[in-house]
């Protein structure tokens, strides 16, 4: 190759390599929605479906022959100034039937506070079969100074839950939100 051939070859190759790097920067961001989709499909990482579900026909009917234990857990993200706990810590449920329990949160400060609960289900295999019809985690929760709130969650365990799963744990972490956000 002569000198000018080399220059021409570089001019062709180098922009491609830079474009590839920029595309890989974009790929990093593409991993974000990709991860969401994979979590929604697989229940990976305890992700529960965040939308209300409708019942469908007999296949999802109540299975009274089977009992599953559901445990309720609460935790606060570091520094979140609430008292936060479930009213019951465990209950026996039949797959397919709807149940309602509630969590109680108390604002421990003398200021208005906004909180957001984020659910997680363990084991992750059960996450896609844990359905919430109504949940305080669907919305932000506003608190007046010192206010205490009883927040309901209505759920059912799908009968398609794998047979070997006998205990499902629903956990909520309560986060403090910036009121302006």
């Amino acid at each position, binding site marked *: *190759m002569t*000198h000018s051939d*080399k220059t021409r*070859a*570089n001019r062709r*190759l*180098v922009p491609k*390599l*830079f474009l*590839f*790097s*920029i*595309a*890989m*920067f*974009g*790929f*990093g*961001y593409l*991993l*974000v929605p990709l*991860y969401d989709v994979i*979590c929604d499909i*697989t229940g*990976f*990482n*305890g*992700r529960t479906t965040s939308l209300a579900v409708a019942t469908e026909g007999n296949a999802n009917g109540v299975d009274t022959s089977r009992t599953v234990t559901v445990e309720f857990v609460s935790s606060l*993200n570091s520094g979140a100034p609430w008292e936060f706990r479930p009213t019951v810590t465990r209950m026996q449920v039949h797959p397919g039937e709807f149940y309602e329990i509630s969590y109680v949160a108390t604002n421990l400060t003398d200021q208005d506070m906004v909180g*957001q609960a*984020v659910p997680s289900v*363990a084991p*992750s*295999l059960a996450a896609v079969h844990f359905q919430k019809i109504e949940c305080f985690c669907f919305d932000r929760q506003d608190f007046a100074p010192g206010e205490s709130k009883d927040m309901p969650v209505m759920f059912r365990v799908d009968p398609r839950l794998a047979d070997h799963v006998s205990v499902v744990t629903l956990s909520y*972490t309560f*986060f*403090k*939100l*910036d009121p302006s*956000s």
Partner: protein
Amino acid sequence: MAATTHDVHDGHGEHHHGPAKGLGRWLFTTNHKDIGTLYLLFSLLMFLIGGSMALIIRAELFQPGLQLVDPHFFNQMTTMHALIMVFGAVMPAFVGLANWMLPMMIGAPDMALPRMNNWSFWILPFAFTMLLSTLFMPGGGPASGWTLYPPLVLQTGDAFPFVILAIHLMGISSIMGAINVIATIFNMRAPGMTLMRMPLFVWTWLITAFLLIAVMPVFAGAVTMLLTDKYFATSFFNPAGGGDPVLFQHIFWFFGHPEVYIMILPAFGVVSQIIPTFARKPLFGYHSMVYATAAIAFLSFIVWGHHMFTVGMPLTAELFFMYATMLIAVPTGVKVFNWVATMWRGAMTFETPMLFSIAFVILFTIGGFSGLMLAIAPADFQYHDTYFVVAHFHYVLVPGAVFSIMAAVYYWLPKWTGHMYNERLSRIHFWLSVIGVNILFFPQHFLGLAGMPRRVPDYALQFTEWNMVSSIGAFIYGISQLLFVYIVIQTIRAGDKATDQVWEGARGLEWTVPSPAPYHTFDTPPKISATNAHG
């Protein structure tokens, strides 16, 4: 095949002057040898700074209890030690070797993009000045470990944006360096230097460069997300806003695993140059070496999950990552067996570069084996975040990558300076290093298996003895590197005159030019034929 020397003229007048005088030479240079020297000196400086931090860590861990530094500063030391060694010492050292040697090995007059080359080096001092300055900021430097996991890393004080920006600069520098390497190898080879005739160091660097441009931008994206999460109210990793901190781990390790191969593939290349020279035999299985390197590079993209077995993955994902990881042992084994086969029945001599290379083969293999142990998903739950992990990656990075850099410096130093180094002192340096490094890291296997967690400034009493042993090894290894600095300075200043070929068994284009290599080499490309191809 004395095809070219400094006195061959090709009619490009601008190429004929020697180096400029004074500081300007180094600031404005576009010469691949100057820039290679700058990279190597910078890397040496960073190696000493990062090493001093490691000694602070080992001094604190000499005894249980807190004696020298407070825990927050200890965490800053572990974090900065890792960031500096990875991005400041090991990577720039390999880029420096690439700058010096690639053009000479493929018969090119310079790198393809000399001005960008200058820029990619000169970004680094600014990046690391900024990174180091964070230690003096309110709240101190980053203390989250080099993995920068949120939400911990978001608690970094004023230093946070400086750390992120420093990482961006390092990334830009690496990407530009890698693009330069690819363009040089694709477009600047001498006539007859086909891809399959290239020396293995060139091959491993070509593959490394592709890894770099593929994953450094992903890392840049991940740290940018951290930055916007902290200052611009995004919620990539914040569950309250619908994000997920585990997502960061996926993105980070998608970069992080190829990154560890970025630090070891050029080392494979160096060792593949040195062992044939001192065994006086051609490299055994050249083609399989090239394919094995490419296979390792490909596999590095699909194994990141093995760093995160304990986050709560589905069983199928754990199995996939476990088997994929173990698969890497196959091409790596091919390489190790090829090096051994190259030495088999060779007329071996044991000059310092060869000593470091043989130590590399043995000790890197130990690090590879502990890596296989960590790859076993059910066992990893026991090893995760213990000193066993620390022992594993230090075995592959210190007697692995760092020893290969030492080997490369001793191997090519006579070509760079025109002087032979002091063989007796360098052997002392080798033995102190190899003994020190094993006293330093081998006991950490025991500590990890016994359950000592990593990244802690204090530990339970039963870990005392092995920690003391490890710290003693650290000081032997650390202080003996000052001997290396002395040997290098001594060689630059004086020493026996080196011949052009330097080593009796050395083959390849870089040994056909005079020692020291003239400022401009291969202005007229040499002709390569089947008989004089890769040494």
